[in-house]
């Protein structure tokens, strides 16, 4: 009996320690989440401004054409998947990857029909192990990413579209809804849909001069805009990651509490049983004499 009491005690202590860690991780995730949300917020004006300029151009002239605005026949699809480098974030990565696999299965007959760009170690490991056509990957990104970190992979994805290596590009990531809910989404990035971008398109139709020409400005601005959207998605995914981590660690802490409570009860019962037995033995012994 004394043996099992010591066992229980040891287990309680170990749970206490785990709890301390999960609690700390929860709080760290919470503070990173706040910062990630701020960053996602701070990135918005840039994307909005770019969109505004594109709309100005789209409004002013009806005959603008650019490959990034035009649907073409889809022979091949690109997917840019954003996962995290680290685990301990609940279903953050697994939900997303499951959704991706389902989408791929539904949409495509063979692996020839798509290529995948992956950000994040978890996604890289999962997808390469299962022999998905991963053509580019990026791991070890900072928790406080800057645009320059994302630019290489974003530029590559956008260039491949421009070079017609694939005919549409989807962003697959966990959209941040609120700190409790993150939704895995697959969102089409290219071709861009200017009609979908509207909302503010009625602003002003004054004549604007474009240097060197409308076409040139458009040709420069559209890839930048697409890259910016990828960056925004990444910031969003980062916020989701920390939110998921916070929830997961919060749950872990709660579970640890529950387990500790149960073990305490067990321990007390065992203690009482031991005392009772001892008394019984003493009484038994006294009676015998």
């Amino acid at each position, binding site marked *: 009996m004394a043996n099992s009491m010591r066992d229980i005690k040891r287990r309680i202590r170990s749970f206490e320690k785990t709890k301390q860690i999960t609690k700390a991780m929860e709080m760290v995730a919470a503070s990173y989440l706040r910062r990630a949300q701020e*960053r996602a917020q*701070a*990135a918005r*004006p*840039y*994307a909005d*401004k*770019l969109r505004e*300029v594109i709309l*100005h*151009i789209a409004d002013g002239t009806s005959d603008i054409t650019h490959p990034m605005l035009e649907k073409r026949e889809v022979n091949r699809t690109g997917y840019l998947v954003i996962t995290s480098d680290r685990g301990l974030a609940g279903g953050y990565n697994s939900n997303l990857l499951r959704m991706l696999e389902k989408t791929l299965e539904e949409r495509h007959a063979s692996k020839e029909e798509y290529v995948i760009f992956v950000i994040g170690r978890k996604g890289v490991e999962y997808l390469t192990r299962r022999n998905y056509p991963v053509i580019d990957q990026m791991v070890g990104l900072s928790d406080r990413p*800057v*645009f*320059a970190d994302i*630019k290489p992979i974003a530029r590559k994805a956008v260039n491949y579209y421009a070079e017609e290596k694939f005919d549409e590009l989807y962003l697959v990531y966990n959209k941040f809804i609120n700190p409790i809910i993150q939704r895995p989404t697959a969102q089409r990035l290219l071709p861009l849909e200017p009609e979908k971008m509207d909302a503010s398109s009625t602003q002003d139709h*004054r*004549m*604007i*001069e*474009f*240097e*060197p020409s409308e076409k*040139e*400005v458009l040709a*420069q*601005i559209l890839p*930048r805009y697409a890259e*910016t959207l990828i*960056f*925004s998605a990444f910031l969003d995914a980062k916020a989701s990651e920390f939110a998921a981590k916070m929830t997961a660690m919060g749950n872990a802490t709660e579970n640890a509490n529950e387990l500790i409570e149960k073990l305490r009860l067990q321990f007390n019962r065992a203690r009482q049983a031991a005392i009772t037995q001892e008394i019984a033995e003493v009484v038994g012994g006294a009676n015998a004499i």
Partner: protein
Amino acid sequence: MRLEIVTPERTVYEKEEVQMIITHAAKGDIGILPNHAPLISPLDPTIVRVKLNDQLEEKIFVSGGFLEVRPDQVTILAEAAELPSEIDVERAKAAKERAEKRLKNKEKIDAVRAELALKRAMNRLKVTEI
């Protein structure tokens, strides 16, 4: 006239009352006074000079992007923008040397990229000089 310099990460610079903005646009140097005609132009890596009043002038490094001019508001959308105090001079110097080396032994490199890198480094250095 209002000036805003915005990057994907944050708003770097924001001033309500600006007298004049001088920079280098697609067709050459440009000076923008209030009530300038609406204009949109891409920017190479360059320096933006902002005249706040007759004496005070500020300089900001911009690593390429777009310039949008409206009569009462100028917006610069840049991939990166730095005030002189934020520039890492040593890093810019190293980047300059690297780019020059690459341009010298011309094989197997993306000359356009190297040139842009050189432009960025040189403008970064220039903006810190004064």
